[in-house]
């Protein structure tokens, strides 16, 4: 059996040149996954953080 979740969540935002000290970095804010493929998870563990 399988469970498929499809959901809407905020997109990460890339810092602008002014905010990012002169270069564009990784997206900040938005959804951040805390899992890896093939990882075993239990009910209640975090999959992602918004």
């Amino acid at each position: 059996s399988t469970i498929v979740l499809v959901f809407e969540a905020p997109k990460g935002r890339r810092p602008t040149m002014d905010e990012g000290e002169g270069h564009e970095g990784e997206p900040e804010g938005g959804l951040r996954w805390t899992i890896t493929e093939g990882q075993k998870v239990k009910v209640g563990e975090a999959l992602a953080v918004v």
Partner: protein
Amino acid sequence: LNSALKNTKIEWKPIPIALGVTFLGAFQLYRIQRREKHIQSNEGADIPRKRERIRPSGPWTVQVMSTLPLKALSRLWGRFNELTIPYYLRVPGFKLYAFIFGVNLSEVAEPDLHTYPNLAAFFYRTLKPGVRPLDPNPHAILSPADGKVIQFGHIENGEVEQVKGVTYSLDALLGSERPSQNAPIADARIGAKHEHMKVDHEDILRTDQEFAKVNGITYTLPNLFSGPWPKHGTPSEMPSDQSMPAAPSIESEVRADLEGSEAAGPWWAPTSAKTPTGLYFCVIYLAPGDYHRFHSPVSWVVESRRHFAGELYSVSPYLQRTLPGLFTLNERVVLLGRWRWGFFSYTPVGATNVGSIKINFDRELRTNSLTTDTAADRAAHEAAKRGEPYSGFAEASYVNASRVLRGHALGRGEEMGGFQLG
């Protein structure tokens, strides 16, 4: 005859598996041909066409599997596992099962394994309170079940990557049409608790923030939608008096967002215009030894469900790799709703051994049932009468569960249902 019966030696020999599979395949081929003939003879008549079985493409193993009567086998498997096991065989039997499939017996709620009369009951076991603590971060999306993360990521152009580059569309998984406003109302009651909630909904409009009082516990909109509150700040910032009309404003915000987005793009496309959002997906596979009840990953409102009475292929990682669009072929229940960031869907997909999907707040739902086909046929007939194409699923709405929320509210980590054998 008497002497022949008495004196003839009977030797029992197992039928080779390949021969059995060939025989079943030939029988299924015969059934398909007979059905095709029947459909052809009925063409042009008033009777709506039944759901046509989709022939999957893939290696020979998939082709052989597609000829097997998987749903019948699944039902037979379910019946077999409901047979009562002799009392003294239960503990060794369940321990053997636990050893083979890696069940942690120390977590099982009922320590005396004798109390499970059969494997079906043991399979649908509950766990001891506290063995699955929820992540303390209120902004975390929780794992809905025990299992293995097969795939996760961002959805581009409405396509979900299954495994190893195989993609399928959201339209195929969830249905291509927006949930119908005229869908029949599902019987969403699950017991006295929700009966009370239903009655107390009359108070919602009067008490603003509080929307239900059940057994002395007050449910409020902030604790339903934990996390940032779109307009009025975080829940902790919400004033405690009852002067703020929170419920109507949230409802109107969500509704305005939804209405504004109806014209443009697919129905499942991001709805909120205030925050840039995207669509994300995550696939969790439950192995046979896992705890098979599933829970709500976030606080959200389920507005409707779609029951796709498809096939029941195995959903093992091997088949997920080799059978394209597996999740769109199998029987599944698509729960559609919204959470604080917009669209939210939750789809338990059945498999050959676990074809029965149970949703706690939906007493009408019957999956992997002989009556399912009848319901689908009835839905097809009704769609034909209205002059609409049949969408391939039976839809029901939970709008009656709460007039304000227009759906069934689920808390973070709340048990939603489970998979049962057969």
